[in-house]
């Protein structure tokens, strides 16, 4: 390939990707606009909160418990070296509220609810349901996508809170019941060291941002998927990959902005 062809191919590739980004940005603006109009029919959003929120509860709670158990064990081993085993509650609460709660919840959400959203929208497209809706003068972005988008944004902080709460309870079981850390120390250090705004507030902000990102990616990828079984399968995989990477990347940015000063 001569250098000119190479440059042309490179340019074409960059332009194509910029076009996709531009299209996605317009789609996002559209969804954000329609999200507020979907509040006029709250039942649509409530149904979706149940579908993508409530039905994710089991996996979120189970994962929260597993992470809490492991965190308590590992945390105790490290803290006890420095005679700070009583700080276990604080360590677990900070780790869950600031980082693990939002990030793992978002990753699980992308795998459980995100793939479900992508597959549902993709199959609706493949089954001509979205075109049929269009032909009935009903905008699928208002009727189908916007309530799901809003439901995702509402569900994620709640799921994150459940994850962290279950994780802390699991750490309590390990730390206080199994290891024998003083119960008063476990809770009082947590109460003293965790700030509602700096720690929990920032954690909630993270879950909202992750909720926006993962739900948007799931809906966009599903809506733009090819209307074939292979297209839907590929879209589902892409949702997990793009969402997971986005969550990890966004987490770094948000952590840098929120917790850069001691």
């Amino acid at each position, binding site marked *: 390939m001569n250098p000119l062809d190479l440059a042309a191919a490179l340019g074409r590739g960059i332009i194509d990707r910029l076009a996709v980004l531009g299209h996605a940005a317009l789609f996002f603006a559209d969804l954000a606009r329609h999200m507020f109009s979907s509040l006029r029919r709250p039942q649509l959003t409530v149904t979706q909160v149940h579908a993508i929120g409530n039905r994710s509860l089991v996996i979120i709670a189970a994962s929260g418990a597993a992470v809490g158990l492991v965190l308590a064990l590992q945390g105790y081993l490290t803290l006890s070296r420095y005679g700070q085993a009583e700080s276990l509650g604080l360590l677990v609460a900070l780790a869950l509220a600031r980082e693990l709660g939002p990030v793992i919840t978002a990753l699980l959400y992308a795998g459980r609810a995100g793939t479900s959203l992508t597959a549902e929208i993709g199959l609706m497209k493949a*089954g*001509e*349901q979205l*075109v*049929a809706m*269009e*032909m*009935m*003068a*009903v*905008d699928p972005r208002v*009727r189908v996508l916007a309530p799901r988008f809003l439901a995702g944004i509402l569900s994620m902080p709640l799921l994150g809170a459940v994850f962290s709460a279950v994780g802390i309870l699991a750490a309590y079981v390990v730390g206080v019941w199994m290891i024998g850390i003083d119960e008063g120390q476990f809770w009082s250090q947590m109460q003293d060291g965790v700030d509602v705004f700096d720690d929990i507030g920032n954690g909630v902000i993270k879950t909202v941002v992750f909720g926006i990102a993962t739900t948007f990616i799931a809906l966009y990828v599903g809506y733009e998927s090819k209307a074939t079984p292979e297209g839907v399968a590929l879209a589902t995989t892409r949702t997990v990959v793009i969402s997971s990477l986005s969550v990890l990347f966004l987490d770094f940015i948000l952590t840098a902005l929120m917790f850069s000063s001691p």
Partner: protein
Amino acid sequence: MVSIQDVTFGYDSRVVLSHVSLDFPRGRLIAIMGSSGCGKTTLLRLIGGVVTPQSGRILFSGAAVDTSDRVALYALRRKMGMLFQFGALFTDLSVFDNVAFPLREHSDLAESMIRDIVLLKLDSVGLRGAAALGIAQISGGMARRVALARAVALDPEIIMYDEPFTGLDPISLGVTANLIRRLNDATGATSLIVSHDVEECFQICDYAYLMSAGRVIAHGTPEALKASEEPEVRQFIRGEPDGPVKFHYPAAPIARELGISA
């Protein structure tokens, strides 16, 4: 009612419709027939504004079908009903809710009134008893009849039927054909049937267009088309394997493809 003026449409380099001009007067039942892939369904999608012509224009009741003006397009679509080839029913809704969907979206009717209308529409397609069933619980033929009830729920000015007879058993086929005719006569709507079922279409339509390779090759009353001596018309109507329309997609000779010398 609908005027298609010198419309050309294609996907990438493949031309689907080439300089097609058609007029569909109000109150007539018109069949658009032709072999698979000749552009029949695309024609309906162009009228509904699902796709945009590359050149030419489409008028509906004197107004241009403009896909760039969403509000105007949706206003036009409220006057249209479309039966999709595979029904395109909403799989998360029941039979009743599918038919009620356009009524709930576009009217302020009380639920009791919607119930009465839906049951009447379902009764007309013989499925009042299936109102409570889910879409997964009904057969393909039943799904098509539910889709028909949904398409006419708002008593549209134009009803477009995409292959309404495919997959129906003989009883359902006869009933559906009569229903289409009766609906057309009773409501005064314009009906467009896209089909390759010559016998059934000719029994109920007032006028027919015959298409091949993206252009109109003949049009007239069923009697006139039956009497036509045009080779392409004769081949299609009589279902002859040999004639101007080739069965095989263009390809190199099979002997060369298989490496066999003649």
